[in-house]
């Protein structure tokens, strides 16, 4: 197990290097210097901004020196200062992080408590009325563009029915609320964003769980369990489930980049102060230090997530935990 972890950790070193290289390359994508980027949205980068970028990236130096200096600062989590307000980038990101992480953890939680039982039920009653309608909804959920669903739900719940607030994370008079009012206020603000960010994951996880469970139910050890006289419930939830849930751990790791990317969309629709919206604003304002920092951090986070998922998988799967020494 320890050798496995060590090997996985060592394997991630080239990945980290690659991540920094690609991120660095993006800023140098433009022919000429990044500072000469003229775009449809921001036709003129001011002289002052140009000077600041040149200083930040040491653009007068050879490219490999620039890269090394940039990565050295990166190790110290020094991403420079934001162009828009001059505050350190890392500070701006950390203050926005809790909202994004909170929403994603919440939606992850809901995805799993709904999708896993759904998948299990579909698998055991494969071909039934329940399974068919579940499959139907999975198709719908997969195909629905999240931002469109968000708009429709806003129309319905916030405007037509007027049940929920349309944007933000707290009401204007939040400070004057009692504790329970505050909780209710946040729940009301987060209900739609969390639901919208669940949709795709819900469809995906329930589908994976169904496939995984169906596969497990066809395994020989299921015959053994039944032949032992175990009740169907035990066969299902002890013998099949434990095997079927293993691959889902990997799915959890793989879904991280999608969640981070998706946060850009629904945070800007619902005007939530998370890193997704921060990124969107940075892109609109060509705030390069902030953009670079978020790209690098997003990728590193994804990598860390995959690493943890892999190690978690190895831990719960005895075949890897107690692997025979393979020569």
């Amino acid at each position, binding site marked *: 197990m320890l050798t496995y972890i060590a090997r996985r950790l060592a394997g991630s070193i080239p990945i980290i290097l690659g991540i920094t290289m690609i991120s660095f390359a993006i800023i140098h994508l433009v022919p000429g210097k990044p500072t000469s980027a003229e775009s449809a949205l921001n036709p003129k980068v001011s002289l002052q901004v140009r000077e600041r970028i040149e200083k930040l990236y040491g653009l007068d130096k050879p490219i490999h020196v620039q890269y090394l200096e940039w990565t050295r600062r990166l190790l110290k989590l020094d991403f420079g200062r934001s162009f828009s307000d001059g505050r350190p980038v890392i500070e701006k990101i950390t203050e926005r992080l809790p909202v994004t992480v909170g929403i994603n953890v919440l939606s992850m939680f809901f995805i799993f408590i709904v999708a896993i039982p759904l998948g299990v039920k579909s698998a055991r009653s494969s071909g039934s009325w329940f399974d068919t309608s579940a499959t139907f909804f999975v198709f719908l959920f997969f195909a629905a563009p999240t931002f469109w669903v968000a708009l429709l739900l806003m129309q319905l719940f916030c405007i037509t029915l007027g049940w929920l607030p349309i944007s933000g994370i707290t009401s204007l008079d939040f400070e004057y609320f009692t504790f329970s009012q505050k909780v209710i206020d946040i729940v009301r603000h987060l209900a739609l964003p969390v639901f919208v960010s669940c949709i795709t994951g819900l469809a995906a996880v329930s589908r994976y769980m169904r496939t995984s469970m169906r596969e497990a139910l066809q395994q020989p050890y299921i*015959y*053994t369990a039944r*032949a032992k*006289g*175990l009740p169907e419930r035990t066969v299902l939830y002890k013998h099949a489930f*434990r095997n079927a849930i293993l691959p889902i751990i990997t799915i959890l790791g793989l879904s991280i980049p999608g969640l981070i990317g998706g946060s850009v969309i629904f945070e800007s629709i619902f005007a939530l102060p998370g890193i997704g919206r921060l990124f969107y604003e940075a892109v609109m304002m060509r705030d390069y230090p902030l953009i670079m920092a978020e790209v690098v951090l997003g990728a590193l986070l994804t990598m860390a997530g995959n690493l943890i998922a892999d190690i978690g998988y190895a831990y719960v*799967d*005895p*075949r890897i935990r*107690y692997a025979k020494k393979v020569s």
Partner: protein
Amino acid sequence: MLKISNLHVHFDLDGTIVKALCGVTLGVNLKETLVVAGESGSGKTVTALAVTRLLPAAARVTSGEIYFNGKNLLLLEEDALRKVRGKEIAYIFQEPGSFLNPVYMVGDQIMESFLLHQGLPRVEAFAETLRLLELVKIKDSRRVFFNYPHQLSGGMNQRVGIAMSLACRPKLLIADEPTTALDVTTETQILDLLCELKSSFGFSLLFITHNLSIARRIADRICVMYKGQVVEEADAERIFCSPQHFHTKELIHAYQTIGTQ
């Protein structure tokens, strides 16, 4: 004590009906070893699984009766049937590795039967499991208890499988090609073990194989299956001395050819 009569089983494979068994009739007497022999696809395994209705969902018993100690197993309620499975009729399967659950320790999987059918407290169930592991000639039973199937050899896993099936002292043991996946030395050990356990535990044995040399070693009676039917059933001696059906002759011929090589 087990009497299967005129059993028909169909498989529904995406609309096409495949007849797996067409009127199988056979019986196992008390403390007897009946070997069911036949080539693969002849319906041996389907017959075995049908006894306690373990067939996959695509299979359907269309007609026939299976009597075990006076009860018609095909008409038994699911709950009552579960008390027969494992407790009165137990199974040993072919691939010992894949018939054990890879994510649970083998000891736990054996212990499950004690907890389920005999309602023993965990401590006693643990002790019983260790005793059982020793009965199937596993020396360091304590270590093996805490091992996962992939950590054990095929022979060891099959011993675990045997231990698991004997947990509740079943009256009938159904062994479906239990040695096919093993090498010849281990095969001999497992067969010897089975015969020894049979005399000490006193169960009846329904042994499925395609290999007549095994049949000759252990059988009291042999029944030969061919294309979903029993084509010949007789004492072991009679089958080898004067086979009647052409398929029996073929099987004997095949076995003798291998024997002389």
